[in-house]
């Protein structure tokens, strides 16, 4: 059975902050098969000088309605065009791609933490939705209160949503990993799912090591500049610890990831 490129009708567009947009689209294949942590490779308009698709994480899925949502920040040419699509237009999308978060061992007895910072706040909403029946604490970090987005969406899936802002203009003043660290004083999380910038992962690693928590329980979603997005071209490589002569191998963020165990990633 051949995979095909998905044609997705834009149903709704919302601007969440000064440069963040949310697009909800219709496509049965994506809505039916997508897993939290997976991404889509999106064609941005018909400008032929744009050679690459833009990889964007899936923010939400409504399996019953056959719809899905992507949330992204406008950072350049491609995402600018993406933000200009209008309702009724169709987008050309490859996916779902990537391995997604492994939630197979999560259950009613688990104590789960979702730690998300900056742009990492966008993809883990889908994860929060899939885990809503379980005991989940959600930690969201933003630059400042103007950067806040999706908080109310998260509150639909957990009654324990904690917000941190770098400048203290909303919620806890400081990094989301510091806020998470405070909660480690009285919580033993069996599963930690994180998404955010490299710096956040390094802080998270330090926090877990300092508090002697099991680093293997923590899954993170990596980002890297991509080419094909399918695993063929080897441009989106990340260094992963393996038992071989060199102690590492370059793996593909688009195919072997984007989710890896925190302990196996070698950050440069």
């Amino acid at each position, binding site marked *: 059975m051949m995979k095909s490129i998905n044609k997705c009708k834009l149903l709704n567009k919302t601007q969440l902050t000064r440069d963040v947009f949310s697009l909800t689209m219709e496509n049965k294949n994506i809505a039916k098969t997508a897993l939290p942590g997976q991404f889509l490779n999106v064609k941005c308009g018909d400008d032929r000088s744009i050679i690459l698709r833009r990889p964007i994480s899936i923010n939400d899925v409504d399996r019953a309605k056959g719809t899905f949502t992507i949330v992204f920040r406008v950072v350049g040419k491609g995402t600018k065009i993406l933000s200009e699509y209008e309702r009724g237009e169709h987008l050309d999308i490859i996916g779902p791609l990537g391995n997604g978060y492994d939630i197979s061992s999560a259950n009613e007895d688990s104590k789960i933490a979702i730690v998300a910072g900056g742009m990492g706040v966008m993809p883990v909403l889908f994860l929060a939705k899939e885990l809503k029946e379980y005991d989940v604490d959600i930690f969201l970090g933003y630059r400042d209160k103007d950067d806040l987005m999706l908080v109310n969406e998260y509150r639909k899936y957990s009654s324990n949503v904690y917000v941190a802002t770098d400048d203290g203009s909303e919620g806890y003043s400081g990094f989301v990993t510091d806020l998470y660290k405070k909660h480690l004083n009285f919580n033993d999380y069996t599963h930690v799912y994180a998404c955010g910038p490299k710096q956040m992962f390094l802080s998270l690693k330090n926090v877990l090591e300092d508090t002697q928590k099991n680093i293997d329980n923590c899954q993170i979603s990596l980002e890297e500049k991509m*080419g094909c997005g399918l695993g063929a071209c080897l441009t989106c490589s990340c260094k992963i610890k393996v038992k071989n002569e060199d102690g590492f191998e370059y793996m593909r963020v688009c195919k072997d990831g984007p989710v890896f165990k925190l302990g196996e990633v070698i950050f440069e």
Partner: protein
Amino acid sequence: MNLKVKIANLEFKNPIITSSGTYGFGREYGEYIDLNKIGGIATKGLTLLPRHGNPPPRIVETSSGILNSVGLQNPGIDVFLNKDLPHLKKNYDTAIIANAAGSTLEDYCGIVEKLSNSDVDAVELNISCPNVKQGGMSFGSTPKSVAEVTKAVRKHCKKPLIIKLTPNVTDIAEIAKAAESEGADAVSLINTLLGMKINIQTRKPELKNNFGGLSGPAVKPVAVRMVYQVSKAVKVPVIGMGGIETADDAIEFMLAGASIVSIGTANFMNPIAPIEVLDGIEEYLKDSKLDDIHDIIGKVELY
């Protein structure tokens, strides 16, 4: 309608292949198109020993192109022969062109020897690699070193031998003639153009390797010109590549002198590109009331 073309005694069912480095070993794209429909695939560049490749970032978009600095990450020839080649041969009826690279003449001979004794249909030599014994200049940069490496591997190669030319040279026709003179059965061009992109905020290059290879539509005019010059200089078939996205692009290359065209970067945006190019070429021949692909190969008329 005849779309078959030949390199030595290897017949391609049609003139469409996919470019080394963009396609892995066909597994991923094989889920999106029927690889049996295209003439062949050129594998990821192989080396005797596995290679990690360069640290990321390895790719950046430029206007109408991309710069890449993957650095020949590959599992090594043995894994290819034991795992990837059998998978390809078992599942697909299309020409498998093994792309081979090395740092020394001994490396090249060693890997070509192994490939020659295998089930691959042809060997494509990547001579854009820096020659470690000659101060890092690539084997492909002078007619003399091209002749040297072609002569050395020819002895070990029972399969059709294709030399892949780098465009980062002064006279591509002389380079092609050197390859032909030492027994190349075909030449393929162009490989990537050496390029650089600087981030003005960080004041650092976008690629961790600082420099990378440019591919995509931006290079097409250079590639078409080089295919033309080479096809006038040699008698062996020419495989043309460099920014082909559509059938129109492919036809340009064929008129310039390419017998086979290869699609690489275009696959990233459009996995169906090879099929669309094939269908478009067929349509062009039909509309022109031609029934053989050879009716357009090399048929450009200069002023």
